[in-house]
């Protein structure tokens, strides 16, 4: 009834190609942004900011990065935390050695370094596919784990091997209160989401999807696999690099290589499976899901006044994750985002049956 595009005729291709062709969507998105920037800072408690919202925002960014590679370009990676680590340590060293540099610049530089490393480990993708590539990316994971634990320069010779970051300050704005962190991250995320959206609907995006859907055909119509795959790796790693830097600076503030281990990589993968492969929205949903679930499991019993051992909950968490992965792969391979889209389709026709 209210969600209807009748009468919204597109007179130019430009208007037909805009991000949200349907008016209602534009309104909804605007409202959402207003809510996120205007309302959330007042209603959400510090605890929720620090342990839910902020991790969610950062991981959503990382998930988008991974989704660009796996969901859009069809190149699987189970070692993407490695690129987050690269980003984090790059940012740490840049900030340490050039203190006067603006944090945003640091972020971008860290991202670029991560991108370079990403390309390096993406090279095998030119010769190998799918499962084989998965193992190649594992190499990235374990190598970086080792590298940052062993080469003292990266940690500024800290005898514990753990690094601390100075509080972020940008143009006089000292970002330390949870709300400030939230607003800063939200800003970053919005920008990067916009960029990702633009990429996937430009020709680079089409090249990626072509590689994903039918690589031989893609090459036959003139797409260079080298270019398509490596750009995907580069940009994906760039996103994860930035996310990693944020994870270290904004969320942890102090970390050791273990903070970017295989578990994180797998969680990123789960996010895009559950959320939705090849969907930016899916990256958000997935991230939210993976962040909330363990904490929910952890606290739900208390709210319900049940006594469940902490061990039990953490085992439950593993089991539920596992079960959900399988469930989604079987029932809805396109993840929660697909359900959302289906819902919209229905709404579009409502109240008339199709």
């Amino acid at each position, binding site marked *: 009834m209210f969600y209807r595009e009748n009468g919204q005729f597109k007179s130019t291709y430009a208007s037909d190609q805009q991000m949200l062709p349907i008016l209602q969507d534009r309104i909804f998105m605007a409202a959402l942004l207003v809510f996120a920037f205007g309302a959330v800072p007042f209603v959400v408690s510090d605890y929720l900011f620090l342990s839910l919202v902020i991790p969610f925002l950062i991981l959503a960014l990382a998930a988008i990065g991974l989704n660009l590679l796996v969901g859009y370009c069809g190149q699987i990676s189970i070692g993407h935390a490695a690129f987050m680590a690269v980003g984090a340590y790059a940012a740490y060293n840049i900030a340490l050695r050039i203190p006067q540099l603006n944090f945003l610049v640091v972020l971008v530089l860290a991202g670029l370094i991560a991108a370079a490393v990403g390309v390096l480990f993406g090279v095998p993708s030119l010769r190998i596919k799918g499962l084989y590539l998965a193992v190649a990316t594992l190499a990235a994971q374990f190598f970086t784990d080792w590298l940052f634990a062993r080469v003292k320069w990266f940690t500024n010779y800290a005898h514990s091997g753990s690094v601390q970051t100075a509080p972020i300050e940008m143009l006089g704005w000292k970002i330390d209160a949870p709300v400030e962190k939230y607003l800063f991250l939200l800003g970053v995320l919005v920008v990067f989401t916009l960029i990702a959206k633009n990429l996937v609907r430009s020709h680079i995006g089409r090249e990626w999807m072509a590689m994903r859907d039918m690589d031989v055909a893609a090459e036959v119509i003139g797409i260079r696999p080298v270019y398509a795959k490596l750009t995907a790796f580069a940009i994906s790693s760039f996103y994860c690099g930035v996310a990693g830097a944020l994870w270290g600076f904004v969320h942890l503030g102090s970390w050791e290589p273990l903070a970017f281990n295989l578990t994180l990589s797998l969680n990123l993968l789960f996010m895009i499976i559950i959320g939705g492969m090849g969907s930016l929205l899916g990256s958000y949903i997935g991230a939210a899901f993976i962040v909330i679930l363990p904490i929910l499991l*952890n606290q739900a019993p208390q709210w319900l006044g049940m006594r469940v051992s902490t061990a039990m909950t953490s085992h439950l968490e593993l089991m539920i994750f596992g079960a959900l992965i399988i469930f989604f792969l079987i029932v809805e391979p396109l993840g*929660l985002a697909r359900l959302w889209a289906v819902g919209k389709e229905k709404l579009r026709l409502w109240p008339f049956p199709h």
Partner: protein
Amino acid sequence: MKARFVLLAVAAAFAAIGSTSALAQAKEQFFPVLSYRTGAYAPNGVPFANGFVDYLKLVNARDGGINGIKITFEECETGYATDRGVECYERLKGKGPTGATLFHPLSTGITFALTDKSFVDKIPIVTPGYGRADSADGTVFGWNFPLGGTYWTSSDMLIQHVGKKEGGLDKLKGKKIALVYHDSPYGKEPIALLQERAKNHGYELLLLPVTHPGVEQKATWLQIRQQRPDYVFLWGWGVMNSTSIKEAVATGYPREKMYGVWWSGAEPDVTPAGDGAKGYNALVFLSPAGQGQVHKDILKYVHDKGQGTGKKEDIGEVLYNRGMVSAMMSVEAVKRAQIKYGKKPLKGEEVRWGLENLAIDDALIKKLGMTGFMRPVSTSCVDHEGGSSAAIHIWDGKKWNVQPGIYQPDMSILKPMIRVSASKYAGEKKITVRDCAKEAG
């Protein structure tokens, strides 16, 4: 969907708020308990947590709380993972009428992460026998309390011990000491001191890191077999300890020459290796195995009432006792602070004063029924460690036997190191150093 997420978050927020506001007026002192009862470190995490919680329960059951202020506590599973620990911290720091009393991160990694936050939240981070060594300097690390020892003091005492065995520290010249360490901040902490000492005494230090979780040590011990070090210092945690001892057996390295830090000298570390562990030495600080008056009380007031946390049989294990002692020092800190701020629920900031003015002497220890399980600790604004001392105990295949002779760290070596490291941190973090003289006055 983001909207949906935020709604959920808000709902959760109210739930959280609701749970705390209920206690708002209650006369309660809230103790957060960061524990790990699952994963590769559970074998050590469980007994410690049991001891810690049992003691809190005892104080409530026997003394009716701390001077009438009931103790409330909540456990949070960290799995020894830093990010989970931080989440637990954020979740628990606001609970209770006055917020969290103090935190025992029970992981050096988590300690590093929380140290930053402590400056903002003004909640003490208590790390008896672990945490960052330089945090003994209270002027920089205003909120860290490595009560009774750090990894620098412990490694220092181990060096003294082997020095004594050799017949004088100077005899260490040309000797080889291998450090088999958990590849994490915990395992890396002692390196700095051991290297410092190596400079003075001219022994060769072999660094052999073991990757989390520490079940893959074949190569490590092959290197030991090749290098034939005179001593092996073991800086492990969780399954790594037992694995090390097993590999030592497999490569025929004499257990008598192996010395564990006080976190590598408990029952779960040796029992899996069976008889192979006979003769293995470890440092023991504050709390050896065994039972005393306090244990009788715990059995009487807690376990016999069906309130016990773990198995009865495990009471008196090394890590159980250490958990118990850690809880005791926390409680004593609150008592001390109550003298200054009155018998009411105290804020973390007030509890810090208690921690900075701890005076646990033998009389008090006797009163607490902990004679033999605790050594005096007295802190100050400057010294957050409060003096450290430890002994060596040896596993005879059945139980740990404490050896005569108590060691104390050589502060003439540690002091300058702590100062340097602390000021480096203060620099990196842009922290203003406290002036204790002024605060006292």
